[in-house]
C-alpha cells in the first residue's frame, strides 16, 4: 500500500476523500433539512451546461461548472422563496433547458461531449492539481462557515420565518446555504461523479441523523461517518479491485443501515424509560 503513496493521483485522492468526508456531510444535512433533494438534480444539469461552456471557451470545465452551480443555486433559492410547489415545475425547466443548451453547444462546436460528461462520471483518482485545490478550498469554506454561522444556520434550517422574526438575516443565510450546497455539489461531482454525489453528502448525513442527538452532534457525527465511509469505500475498492465511487456508496449504505438499527435501539430504550413507573 505504501508504494501507492509515491503516486501523485493516489495522494490527491486521499486528501480529497479526507476533506470531502469531513465537510460535505454537513451539506447533506442542509439538503435533507431544506428538502433540496430534487433541486440538486437541476444543479447537476446546470453544471453540465457550465462545463460545456467552459470547454467551448477553453477554460477549466470544473471552474465554469462551479459558476453555473452557484447561478443555478441562486435561481433555486429565488424560486423556493415563492413556494416549493411552484419550484417543482421550474426545476424541471432548468434541468431540460440546461441539457438542451449543453447539447446545442456540443453539436455546434468542436467541444468533446465526453469531456463535459466526465464531470458526471468523475473519479477521485483522476483529480488534477487544480481540482484538488478547488475541492480543498471548498471543503474548508464549508467547515469554516458551518462553525462561524452555526446558530444562524440552525435557526434557518429549523424555521426561516421564526429566524427572521428574531432578527436573524434569514434570507441572506438561506441564500448562503443554498449557494454553498450547489458549490459543494459542483465540487463533489468531480470526486465521485454526479450520479453518485449522494455518497459523500447525503449518506453520511442520513446515518448521522438516525442517531438524532441534536444539530451539532449530527454535524460532528456526519463528519466522522463521512471520513470513515470515504476511506472504507476507497480501501474496499483497492482490495477488491472495484470502482471507487460505487464502493464508497456500498460502505455508505452500510452506515445508513447501521444508523437505522441504532435508531431502533434508541427508540426501544426511550420507550422503556417512558413506560417505567415513576
Amino acid at each position, binding site marked *: 500500500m505504501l508504494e501507492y503513496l509515491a503516486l501523485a493521483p493516489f495522494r490527491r485522492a486521499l486528501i480529497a476523500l479526507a476533506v470531502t468526508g469531513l465537510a460535505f456531510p454537513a451539506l447533506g444535512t442542509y439538503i*435533507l*433539512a431544506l428538502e433540496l433533494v430534487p433541486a440538486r438534480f437541476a444543479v447537476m444539469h446546470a453544471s453540465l451546461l457550465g462545463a460545456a461552456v467552459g470547454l467551448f471557451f477553453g477554460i477549466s470545465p470544473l471552474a465554469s461548472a462551479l459558476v453555473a452551480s452557484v447561478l443555478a443555486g441562486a435561481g433555486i433559492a429565488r424560486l423556493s422563496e415563492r413556494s416549493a410547489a411552484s419550484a417543482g415545475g421550474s426545476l424541471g425547466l432548468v434541468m431540460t433547458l440546461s441539457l438542451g443548451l449543453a447539447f446545442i453547444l456540443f453539436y455546434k462546436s468542436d467541444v468533446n461531449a465526453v469531456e463535459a460528461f466526465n464531470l458526471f462520471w468523475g473519479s477521485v483518482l483522476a483529480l488534477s492539481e487544480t481540482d484538488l485545490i478547488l475541492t480543498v478550498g471548498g471543503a474548508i469554506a464549508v467547515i469554516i462557515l458551518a462553525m462561524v454561522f452555526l446558530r*444562524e444556520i440552525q435557526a434557518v434550517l*429549523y424555521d426561516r420565518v421564526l*429566524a427572521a*422574526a*428574531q432578527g436573524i438575516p434569514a434570507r441572506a443565510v438561506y441564500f448562503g446555504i443554498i449557494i454553498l450546497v450547489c458549490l459543494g455539489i459542483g465540487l463533489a461531482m468531480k470526486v465521485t461523479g454526479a450520479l453518485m454525489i449522494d455518497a459523500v453528502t447525503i449518506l453520511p448525513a442520513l446515518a448521522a*441523523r438516525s442517531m438524532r*442527538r441534536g444539530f451539532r452532534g449530527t454535524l460532528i457525527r456526519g463528519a466522522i461517518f463521512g471520513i470513515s465511509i470515504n476511506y472504507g469505500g476507497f480501501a474496499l475498492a483497492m482490495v477488491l479491485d472495484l470502482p471507487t465511487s460505487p464502493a464508497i456508496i456500498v460502505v455508505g449504505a452500510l452506515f445508513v443501515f447501521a444508523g437505522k438499527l441504532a435508531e431502533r435501539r434508541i427508540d426501544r430504550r426511550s420507550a422503556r424509560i417512558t413506560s417505567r413507573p415513576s
Partner: protein
Amino acid sequence: MLVEARDLVLGYGMRKVLEIDELMVEGRRGTIVGLQGPNGTGKSTFLKACLGLREPSAGSIALLGSEPGAGGFRNVLTRVGYLPQARPPGLLRLTVKEVVEGGRYGRIGFLKRSGERDRRAVLEAMEETGVAVLARRAIQELSGGQYQRVQIARALAGEPELLVLDEPGSHLDAEGRSGVIKVISKLASERKSSMLLVAHDDDLLELADVMITFADGAVEYSDA
C-alpha cells in the same frame, strides 16, 4: 406604544385583506391585546406586518416604536417573542433544548458565546412551560400540544418584553389546547408578559385588557 399603524393596507398581490386608517395600541408591562375575528380577516397578516415578515402594500406600521426596515428594528425583534400558528416540526432533527435555545440566538448576537444568563433563561422557559423533562427528546417525537409548548418556551427564552402569539391553541386536540391555555394564563398572571394574542378560544380572549376586532377588511379597537 405597542403598535402604531397609519393608512395601512395589507394584501396578497392585488387582493386587499386589511385597511387601517389609524390604530394606536398603548400598553404598559403586562398589557394583553386580544385580536379576534373570523378566519381570513387579516389577523395573522397584521401580526406578520408588525414583525416585518410581510410588507404593507401602503402606509406604515411600527412595533414598540420602530418600523420594520428602520435601523433599530432588529433590536426591537430581539425584545419580542413570536409564536406562529401551530404547524408540525420540519425535517431538521433537533432536541427540545436546542429549539428553546434557538429562541435566544437573536439576543446573544453574532459570534458571541452564550453565557450563564442565557442558560438560565432557557432552563426557566422550559420549566415554565413544562417541557424541561422533554429536553433531550427529538421534536419529531412530541405530540402537537407538547410541541406547541416547546414553541412557547422558545418564544420565552429571549426574555421578551412582548409576546406575539398567533392562535396558540389552534389545530391541537383538547388535551393539547388545555395545556397551552394553562401555560399562557400562567404567563399572563405570573410573568406579567405583554402580549399581542390572536385567539378564537374564549378562555384565552378573556385574558385580554383591550381587544382589536377584525371584520370586513377593517379593525375596531375596544376595551375588553
